[in-house]
């Protein structure tokens, strides 16, 4: 579903991405796991045709991200890391607006967003800027889903969201996976990484390893680990894989 080959991207001095290659299968929840500044957002922007890579190629849903960007933009849903809806528009107005610019209506794909949107529907006349963090994020997800995209790009969707809402959010992603939507999600949280089908650990623009979370723990975890949760075990792997600081 997503094919990335040897992508390089630099901003002046900083090499944001170095020789990144990965493949995401249809209907998979794929996690990009890494600290701030690892290059996650840059990769998202390249895949959503918002940035041009310096070299390398990428296809999403068999569409080339540079050449076929117009067609591509019809088939993807993108939720940037920052809350990017109109805070002076109400919940319903936001959703209506995004439905219209994707050439659809709320009614057409209501069943898809219903499990998410129904939770914020009681507040549909409220301005988006006045919503709580968790509700903002549900609205943003609804807006990104309203046109039933083939691939969903979620850039740190749970950053700054309370634990309960985070848990709910991942339940929703699971449901979307069952609808056949491919999801590429980035997160700095290791417990969330455990919920992905496969993950890529990314650090300073380089992918260190790609595998299922459990396999990564088996391969790179500490032999006599004191970690009490899989998330902690994964974090240990991350530290083990870190390139030695010069």
């Amino acid at each position, binding site marked *: 579903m997503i094919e990335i080959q040897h992508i390089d991207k630099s901003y002046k001095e900083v090499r944001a991405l170095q020789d990144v290659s990965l493949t995401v299968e249809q209907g998979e929840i794929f996690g990009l796991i890494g600290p701030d500044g690892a290059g996650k957002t840059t990769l998202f*922007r390249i895949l*959503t*045709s*918002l*940035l*041009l890579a310096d070299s390398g190629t990428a296809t999403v849903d068999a569409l080339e991200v540079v050449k076929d*960007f*117009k067609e591509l*933009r*019809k088939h*993807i849903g*993108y939720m*940037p890391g*920052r*809350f*990017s*809806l*109109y*805070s*002076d*528009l109400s919940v319903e*107005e936001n959703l*209506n*607006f*995004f439905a*219209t*610019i*994707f*050439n659809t209506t709320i009614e057409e794909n209501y069943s898809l967003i219903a499990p998410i949107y129904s939770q914020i529907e009681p507040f549909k006349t409220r301005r988006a800027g006045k919503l709580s963090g968790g509700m903002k994020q549900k609205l943003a997800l609804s*807006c990104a889903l309203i046109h039933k995209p083939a691939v969903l790009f979620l850039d740190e969707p749970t950053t700054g969201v309370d634990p309960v809402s985070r848990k709910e959010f991942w339940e929703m992603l699971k449901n979307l996976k069952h609808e056949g939507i491919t999801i590429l999600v980035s997160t700095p949280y290791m417990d969330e990484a455990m919920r992905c089908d496969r993950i890529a650990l990314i650090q300073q623009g380089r992918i260190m390893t790609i595998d299922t979370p459990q396999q990564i723990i088996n391969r790179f975890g500490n032999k006599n680990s004191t970690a009490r949760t899989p998330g902690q075990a994964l974090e240990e792997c991350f530290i083990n894989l870190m390139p030695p600081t010069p």
Partner: protein
Amino acid sequence: MKQFFAFIKKEFYHIFRDIRTMLLIIGIPVAQILIIGFAVSTDVKHVKTAIYDPSHDTSTRQIIQRLGAGEYFDIIRILQSPGEIDDLFKKGEIGFAVVFSENFAGNLYHTAGIAGQARNDNAASIQLIADASDPNQGTVATAYASNIISGYQQELMQQQSIPLMIIPEVQMLYNPSMRSSYNFVPGLMGLIFILICAMMTSIAIVREKETGTMEVLLASPVKPVYIIVAKMTPYFILSWVNLIIILLISVYVLRVPIAGNLVWLNVFSLIFILVALSLGLLISTLVNTQMAALLASGMGLMMPIMILSGMLFPIESMPKALQWFSCIVPARWYISGVRKIMIEGASVRYILTEMAVLIGMFIAILTISLKNFKTRLA
């Protein structure tokens, strides 16, 4: 098309829900035109006046009395020689001076006999000298004085059967071209439309970049031209509302009449508004923060308009290089066109050049902006 209308609806929501923006759009033009309009047309009162009267006869004394009687002139100095006048003006002690000719009453009644053949050398003449460094005060003061003198003249004529001649000789110091207050309305219109349209559109587009919503819009199938035109439409409509308000104020409050064709004045103004909107668009493609957009449209556009559009300084008296440079200032063409059609009452064929230039500018700026509008980030 549905996408497009959804966009326009959204833009109107943005505008109507932001009270400060609304006040800015409607309030600033009204405030500006009222402030400048009234500052320019206020009554002139208590002008410090000096008199030089070498003849000391009944007529001059009566005229002086009348000048001093009203609240317009405060006679503070009776001069011994006309040579003092220049000095007093330069010191700023007086704003107006009246100089009678020698043997005033004698000449007055003498020339009456040979009416119609009055010559300056022996006519009863009064020199009115005004400090026109403030041109408005200068004109108004001379107009008052001329009125008082001709009123006196008419009274005399009712008493006498023969016509009497007093020739007021008006001399404007420091600003001989005397630009009338009428000229401020077209200038102000040019300024306001550039400020409102260019500033508002550029800010509206850049705001989407700043809040991150542009990222979502760009990742959607919506056409860039929709985003742009939808941004311009509400401001185009609001500018038209502004135009109507400004015209109403200038006609009914400032008493500046519309001498020419109202329809063409509207058409011409709307073309200029389009130029201003496309300028705002151009700015928005060049900057990334609302602050930068504000500075670019505020400073980058306002200063050239104030100085080079002919609003404050006549273009004809500029150095050649600046005259050429002023040709690329859209407001120069607009102000010149509005002066012709609104103040002088010229028909539309006299502003065809201005119209053509503005249409050309609109097409050029819009093309550049559309080319410049990025379909990706950074």
